[in-house]
């Protein structure tokens, strides 16, 4: 019987070991062992790589780092300047938008002659709703002239000095405006409230008034020109035992953020007080 040689035996054993290792590796059984062996090498390699990169950066970095820092400071200053410019331009854009809207409004009502004014102050008393504007009798403003924005009615001039005027807003408690409701054409009165809102009162009981109806000045009483928008009805209160209906109103003008207003200077208010018995 022929015996196998030791070389052949070694080859067979090696082959079996290699095949076994491959099988174990493919089966995933060698992963923990591999990790255990490789991790120290990875750590050492990482440590060496970081030091190498640091030294390389030090050697190869630009020698004019001071100049770069100066340039960086200059650019930061430039960014700050541009940001300030952007804010300023945004303000100018807003102002132009307001002026453009006011111009559109003036073009849409060519029968009126306007004088633009800037709101420079509010009344100090919390009970009163007045604003102060930077135009006065030197600019042909007179007491009683209506004041509007491109959105709608603001109020009327209550007092005038040479260079300024005080405007009573329609939300002031002493303000009463005769209005007409669209589309029903019903006449009513808008009264200012201490809350800064207005209420619509004296609406005839037989008038058909709905939320969403528009409220415009009627021109009755001679204090305001007709057809200036005031707001929209948001709710109606109608009770059988009341003489009139009342309604809540959503105003079209934001009276807490008035900036630029238009005074209608060719409107002469009519004082009908002597005619009232």
């Amino acid at each position, binding site marked *: 019987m022929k015996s196998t040689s030791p070389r052949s035996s070694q080859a067979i054993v090696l082959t079996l070991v290699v095949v076994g290792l491959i099988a174990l590796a493919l089966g995933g059984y060698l992963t923990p062992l591999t990790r255990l062996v490789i991790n120290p090498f990875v750590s050492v390699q990482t440590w060496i790589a970081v030091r190498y990169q640091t030294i390389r950066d030090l050697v190869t970095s630009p020698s004019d780092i001071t100049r770069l820092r100066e340039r960086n400071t200059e650019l930061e200053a430039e960014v700050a300047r541009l940001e300030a410019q952007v804010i300023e331009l945004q303000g100018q854009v807003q102002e132009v938008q307001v002026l453009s809207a006011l111009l559109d409004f003036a073009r849409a009502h060519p029968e009126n002659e306007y004088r633009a004014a800037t709101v420079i*102050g509010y*009344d*100090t*008393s*919390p*009970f*009163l709703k*007045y604003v*102060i504007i930077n135009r006065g009798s030197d600019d042909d403003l007179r007491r009683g002239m209506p004041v509007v924005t491109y959105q709608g009615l603001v109020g009327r001039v*209550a*007092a005038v000095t040479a260079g300024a005027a*005080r405007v*009573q807003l329609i939300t*002031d*408690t*002493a303000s009463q405006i005769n209005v007409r409701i669209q589309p029903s054409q019903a006449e009513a009165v808008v009264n200012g*409230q*201490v*809350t*800064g809102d207005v209420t619509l009162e004296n609406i005839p009981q037989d008038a058909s008034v709905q939320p969403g109806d528009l409220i415009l000045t009627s021109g009755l009483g001679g204090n305001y020109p007709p057809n200036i928008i005031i707001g929209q009805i948001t709710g109606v209160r109608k009770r059988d035992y009341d003489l009139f209906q009342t309604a809540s109103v959503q105003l079209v003008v934001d009276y807490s953020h008035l900036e630029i207003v238009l005074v209608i200077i060719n409107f002469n208010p009519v004082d009908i007080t002597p005619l009232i018995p």
Partner: protein
Amino acid sequence: MPLLHGTPDLVLLVLVAWAFQERVETAWHWAILGGIFISISSAMPFGIFIAGYLVTTAVARFLRQRAWKLPLIGMLITTILGTLITQGIAILGLSLTGSLLPLLDSFNLVTLPSLVLNMLLAIPIYVLMSDLANWLYPKEIEA
């Protein structure tokens, strides 16, 4: 700095704090001056603010004599009374001139928030006015 529809009355607070200072003798003058300036800038009937500030100054001077050891408490009490007095006179004045204000709404939405704001600012303003008074009228050191 509005709260609901109330606003702080800084002039009132300064006048009250000034009237509470020990060596200050010009409280009445400033009450009249403050009242005139505010009356000029406001649509409120002329004299309403002057009357309110004068009555409040009188209350402050009276309380300063009675509660001189507790100036901060006196300041707070005068702030409460002063706010109620000035706003009460304002409501009365407006009612007499034809602006009928709903009393309950006026109190809840204007007077009470104004009172809260005035109370919040009363102590800081008192401290500021004390420093100003000590600077203008330093204590005399007895030999």
